């Protein structure tokens, strides 16, 4: 990649023998310039193909922000791709290639669904505990005791909180 001498013609005699070098120089001077339309097409391809990561990656959002809103093209970083119209020559199979621009439904909704299921299960077990759970509770904590506290207005004014001082009608019936 180092030896660059366009006028050196291997296998030839001294340069200029065949008079071609002047023609080559004239041709090099007429290197065609890409049209603006071609440049736009190429840049549109670049924008459609660029991997969506790095500065373009959407910041990770929490569960609730993901539930409440979809990410918008709001705060785009400097140097990020501008929003462009479709390429002049769209190519098959290229649309959306490598893109990750929106919230994937599978990334948020399974989490919300799991949370809701756990909530419902907790309510169900609390409201209607199964028999084995009640038996286990009784074995660990003893029999249930129902206290009838009565009207606070009837409470003795000098009660210290000692169970020995409880009124007789507060104690469970044997």
């Amino acid at each position, binding site marked *: *990649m*180092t*030896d*660059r*001498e*366009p*006028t050196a*013609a*291997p*296998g*030839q005699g001294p*340069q*200029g023998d*065949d*008079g*071609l*070098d*002047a*023609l*080559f*120089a*004239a*041709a*090099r*001077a*007429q*290197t*065609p*310039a*890409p*049209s603006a339309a*071609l*440049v736009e*097409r*190429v*840049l549109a*391809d*670049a*924008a459609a*193909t*660029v*991997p*969506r*990561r*790095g*500065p*373009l*990656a959407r910041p990770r959002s929490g569960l609730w922000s993901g539930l409440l809103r979809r990410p918008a093209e709001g705060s785009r970083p400097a*140097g*990020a*791709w*501008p929003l462009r119209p479709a390429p002049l*020559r769209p*190519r098959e199979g290229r649309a959306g290639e490598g893109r990750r621009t929106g919230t994937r439904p599978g990334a948020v909704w399974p989490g919300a669904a799991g949370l809701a299921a756990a909530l419902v299960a907790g309510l169900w077990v609390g409201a209607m505990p199964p028999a084995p759970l009640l038996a286990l509770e009784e074995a660990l904590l003893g029999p249930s005791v129902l206290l009838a506290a009565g009207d606070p207005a009837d409470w003795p004014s000098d009660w210290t909180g000692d169970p020995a001082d409880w009124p007789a009608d507060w104690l469970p019936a044997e």
Partner: protein
Amino acid sequence: MHGTDIPPGAPLRAPDGAQDAALLAAYAGGDGRAARALVARHLPRVLGLARRLLGDAAEAEDVAQEAMLRLWRIAPQWRAEQARVSTWLYRVTVNLCTDRLRRRRTAVGGAATGEALPEPADERPGALATLIASDRVAALEAALALLPERQRQAVVLRHLEGLSNPEIAEVMDTGVEAVESLIARGRRMLAARLAPRREDLGYDDDRP
């Protein structure tokens, strides 16, 4: 962007490889400015090569767009130590042009490959008529178009794109000796075809 900043007639220089690799990595990271820089650095050369190999401006644009698209696609996997962007693009462009020329020949029922074509006699009236052009460049391009495909590729890469023989060997996927032979034969044929027009075209006066 319009063209390159290469002064007329000066040997072309490939863009710096390390800079290209950095730009490609930036593009892969989502930097749109890097893509614009890569387009400015490479699209004129890719387009020029395609136009000289195909001799058709519209087809050359399609090939240039396709070559750049392949660059965008490979950007995330690009390894700077494996190749230079410029050499890689040249190779892709040459191959795309070869495919187009092959389809073109098939469409018109021509021979399968350019190398298999018998080399036309230097003084054929038909070939010479195609060389009747208004200026030197048109005459040269017309003569180039008559070369066998591999000779044309080697001559264009060497004398119009300014690549070294090892670079051409890499682009054309062949050996350096084969490149030297292709260039020598192509140049001889060009000189023979243009000789009758030498005085008309005025390039005789430019000889040292």
